[in-house]
């Protein structure tokens, strides 16, 4: 008997006496994140329908495999073989670890999935089912400390996705100065990814949080103050950017497969 059922504690047999719907939030989180994982896994292995009319899916960018369609690559640069040990490697699988790692180690998502998936705890003041707990002090969870490296990689990805959003302002003939629904979808997705990255706790720390004397670094203090304001909405940006990137992929897939027509405004 441990935890709230320890002999010295008040003798109460219920795991929690909360009367509100405390289970609703972890359940909804589980449903949404699990659905995203299923969809992302399917798309990562599909290896097709990721490019159409200067629109490239964020799941497949940068496209570094020899298997990539030439228009989706960065100037034809394909340093990764299309096959590894006779296994046809989808271009998405090469790069997936970076955005996935950034989200997996994100301080907000940690809260979300520790509660929703691992029930550690399922909600505040609701007893968790695990007998032992060591937190993030041992392998593999000590790897959560690698968040800043995924943050740096995420910034590079954001730059590439910004480039993708810019070239979406070309028409089918490759002429600049045109805008389609796809352009808006990619711009929205990219802007939300930037907001998610810039509001990140690691970004806040790197910009100025690690300083001991703000007064000696007025510019970094100003930047830290701005990032701190964004940081209040980090969870919101985490969700919106997740939906944004998923919708951008769905949109490109549908256009690439011919199911939807990418409407051009001009």
């Amino acid at each position, binding site marked *: 008997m441990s935890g709230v059922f320890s002999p010295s504690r008040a003798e109460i047999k219920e795991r929690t006496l909360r009367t509100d719907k405390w289970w609703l939030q972890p359940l909804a989180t589980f449903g949404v994140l699990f659905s995203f994982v299923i969809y992302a896994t399917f798309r990562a292995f599909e290896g097709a329908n990721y490019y159409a009319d200067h629109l490239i899916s964020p799941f497949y960018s940068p496209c570094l495999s020899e298997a990539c369609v030439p228009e989706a690559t960065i100037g034809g640069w394909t340093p990764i073989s299309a096959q590894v040990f006779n296994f046809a490697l989808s271009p998405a699988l090469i790069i997936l670890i970076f955005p996935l790692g950034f989200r997996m180690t994100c301080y907000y998502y940690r809260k979300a999935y520790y509660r929703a998936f691992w029930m550690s705890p399922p909600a505040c003041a609701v007893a968790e089912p695990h007998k032992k707990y060591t937190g*993030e002090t041992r392998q593999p969870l000590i790897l959560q*400390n690698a968040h800043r490296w995924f943050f740096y990689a995420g910034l590079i990805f954001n730059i590439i996705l910004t480039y993708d959003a810019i070239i979406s302002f070309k028409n089918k003939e490759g002429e600049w100065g045109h805008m389609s629904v796809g352009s808006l979808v990619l711009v929205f997705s990219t802007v939300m990814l930037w907001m998610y990255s810039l509001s990140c706790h690691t970004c806040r720390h790197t910009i100025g949080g690690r300083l001991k*004397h703000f007064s000696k670094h007025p510019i970094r203090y100003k930047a830290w103050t701005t990032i701190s304001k964004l940081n209040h909405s980090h969870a919101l940006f985490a969700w919106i950017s997740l939906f944004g990137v998923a919708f951008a992929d769905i949109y490109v897939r549908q256009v690439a497969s011919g199911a939807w027509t990418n409407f051009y405004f001009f």
Partner: protein
Amino acid sequence: MARKVNLRIWRGDSTSGSLQNVEVDANEGEVVLDVIHRVQATQMGDLAVRWNCKAGKCGSCSMEINGKPRLACMTRMSSFEEGEEITVTPLRAFPVIKDLVTDVSFNYKKALEIPAYEHPADLGPGEARMEQIDVERSQEFRKCIECFLCQDTCHVIRDHEENKKSFAGPRFFIRIAELDMHPLDMLKNRKRTAQEEHGLGMCNITKCCTEVCPEHIRITDNAIIPMKERVVDVKYDPARWLGSKIRRREGS
């Protein structure tokens, strides 16, 4: 106008106890502590309850109300539905002494383990000068009233008694953060000891401490996560480690 409310109050001690039903009047504008006092005055004369200021500033009347760690003096009766049964128990992370009173001495032991502020050797009394922007982060943490609701809700010790020896808890992580961010504190190893001795790595950022803080201190975002990032600087970031060696930055 008074209305009747149904309370379930935990009565007992460290050997046994149970929830006991009681019906009591509640007047407009009252808080849970008022109603508990009325129960004590009219029906349960020996009901043990710890309280002091009745203004949300002393942190004495911490208890669990409908399963949530709350200050009884800051929980309005009007926040409950008409006819809703209100369950009041002692804090479930600490040993119970009697009824609603728990033994929170765990926290005082942990407080003693946190190294105190170390003043610069070259500054005498009255010579310290700090700018407001350098101390405002630490000032947020000074709002703590030591109600220990954050400690109570933290699953690391609430659900795992065995972790108490190696985990200081959110209240003391804000103390460590306060000192580590202090512009004049000279102690060099706070980051490492936060991780290695006070169990910062055991926190998995589930933010329950922030949710229950009656002073609305952003414990996780402003203290625990920044401290985790500072620990990464000195323990898990080879580039920062190298930088600290080359440029002789503070590296611990």
